[in-house]
């Protein structure tokens, strides 16, 4: 039972981290109608900035905060310099343009930081486990990821549902032309939304950095999962992204944790332990296929006119 609780926490942590990445992606896609493949690059940049600033300041928390601000700035700069040329064009142009950005950022990082990658060591108070329930010890760092991500999710909820900017964001997601026609500075709104998305990706990257190390191309694998989440959740919907991210996090982690044992009931132990990792890594795509069959628009599609 304690194992099950712990695996659920692992799933929750992974899901929340994916939510941060997918929320930015779905915001940009839903509001600006922009397919941003370079979202994973911002995730990588966030991790590199945090590792660098943490090494300079000697403080993990300070490094993370500075890294977050720097990624926000980079994100807004990318929007002003590059993304503006892509609005209103075909999605294929978006894919080409932002794929170019991936190559650009990978090479830029190689030039600045070198090919070896960086590590972001945790302070000792995070590099340990804490007792959260009687008999359940859990990694202090993963627990803090859960707390920070939940706080960010709450902040996003308030921002989108309760503030004027949020109202404009929602209006933009439903009908962009009308928002522009009503005299809203849509350019500024786009820059802000893109910067927010970049900061969320950067936050995900820098929180993942102590777990996975900081390396070139680290955002590319996880970006595929983030796209899966936006598809499951419904494009443009933050709520959908939240539910879908948790779903994917749980399915992936619990699949990896318990699927091998289930397979061992029907297959020989050797065949089971070989086949299980391959099969369990397919699970999230199966979930996506099922959702697409039942609800082609995703679970919570943003209302579009």
């Amino acid at each position: 039972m304690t194992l099950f609780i712990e695996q659920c926490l692992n799933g929750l942590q992974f899901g929340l981290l994916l939510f941060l990445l997918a929320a930015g992606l779905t915001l940009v896609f839903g509001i600006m109608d922009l397919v941003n493949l370079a979202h994973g690059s911002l995730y990588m940049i966030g991790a590199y900035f945090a590792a660098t600033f943490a090494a300079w300041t000697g403080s993990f928390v300070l490094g993370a905060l500075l890294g977050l601000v720097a990624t926000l700035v980079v994100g807004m700069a990318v929007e002003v310099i590059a993304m503006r040329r892509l609005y209103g064009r075909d999605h294929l142009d978006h894919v080409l343009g932002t794929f170019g950005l991936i190559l650009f950022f990978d090479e830029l990082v190689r030039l600045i930081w070198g090919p070896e990658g960086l590590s972001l060591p945790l302070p000792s108070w995070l590099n340990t486990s804490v007792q959260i329930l009687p008999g359940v010890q859990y990694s202090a760092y993963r627990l803090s990821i859960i707390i920070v991500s939940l706080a960010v999710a709450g902040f996003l909820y308030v921002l989108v549902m309760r503030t004027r900017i949020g109202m404009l964001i929602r209006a933009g997601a439903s009908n962009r032309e009308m928002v522009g026609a009503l005299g809203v500075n849509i350019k500024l709104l786009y820059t802000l939304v893109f910067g927010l998305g970049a900061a969320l990706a950067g936050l995900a990257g820098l929180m993942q950095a102590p777990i996975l190390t900081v390396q070139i191309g680290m955002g590319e694998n996880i970006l595929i999962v983030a796209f899966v989440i936006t598809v499951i959740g419904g494009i443009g919907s933050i709520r959908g992204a939240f539910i879908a991210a948790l779903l994917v996090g749980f399915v992936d982690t619990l699949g990896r944790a318990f699927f091998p044992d289930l397979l061992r009931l029907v297959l020989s132990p050797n065949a089971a332990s070989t086949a299980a990792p391959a099969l369990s890594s397919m699970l999230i795509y199966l979930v996506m296929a099922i959702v697409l069959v039942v609800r082609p628009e995703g679970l919570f599609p943003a209302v579009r006119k």
Partner: protein
Amino acid sequence: MRKILLAAGTALLLAAGPAMAQQKPIKIGFISTFSGPVAVIGNDMRNSFELALDHMGRKMAGRPVEVIYEDDGFKPEVGKQKTEKLIESDKVDFISGYIWSNVLLASIKPVVDSKTFLVIANAGASQVAGELCSPYVFSTSWQNDQTPEAMGLYMNQKGVKSVFLIGPNYAAGKDMLAGVAHTFKGKVIGQELTTWPSQLDFSAELSKAKAANPDAIFVFYPGKAGVQFLSQYAQAGLKGKIPLYTAFTIDETSLPLQKDLALGVPGAQEWVNDLPNEANKKFVADYMKKYPGHRPSFYGAQSYDAANLIASAVAATKGDLSDKEALRKAMEKADFKSVRGQFKFGNNHIPIQNFYLQDVVKDAKGDYVLKTVATIIKDYQDGSHSKCPMK
């Protein structure tokens, strides 16, 4: 007039033919991973291979040496393509390299079919030591089982009664976990294979290991995955509670990122940078001189040996590569100064060699270095050699 000139030119070329044949370079193809996060390993292998060529004046038996480096991109299908390219279009005399067992297994058929000599500098797929062994295939590394088998022996010495095994789901990962179980006398109470190379988060596996409450955890995670595993092992609060035993998880390419996390985590290896023989002292010192800021890893040491093995055979046949039988016999003698000390080849062309216990310490300058603690087993031969039909 043009025809005459052309004819004269052709005649000159023909006349120059025999003289040029003397100086025709020896071509070596070298396949490793030179892109992506594990490029540090490929670079270390290339650095060491180049250093070996420097040490021999970039000549073997008087003939210049030309090396063609190819990047397998960490993918078996790419490795196979590059191998075929080296054989068919570059027409290389020797092939060396190969980090990954799955890349090697995908690439070995074209090598053996074309009777090109292959000196494996790392990958130790058990099949290549057993049923797939070939007169043209040699290894300066090991068979995958051997290193974890040595670790299993060490865990017996430490009185470990139960172990939980974690490793990646590909050819080498399966060999390694099987290897520990060969020699470990206690109970294997759990085994987890993870998707390779895409899975980098081991939370689910670590939770299961913790719940199983073993005396020890054994892992095999080469390259960057080793850094990720060690940090997550510490974050899960297992450091100091369930001791970790490793094979190929901590080396000079991963240590700069692992730092403190690697202190006190034992590993088994056939070569450690402080082995006290002359060839090794020269290799390590010159490597650090030629590539400041870097230390050679076992990947590099094996590549350095691969170059020297090839050179020893070319010298024995006086640069004549046409008699493959003579060349094979010369290779089998392993008549060169290996940086791991003396070793000899088994019938399957896999080294019979010592395995050492290595540990991570901080040196006087505050750098993290590996050092030899003890010899776990001497002149150890792999278990697959009986499956190899060669005598």
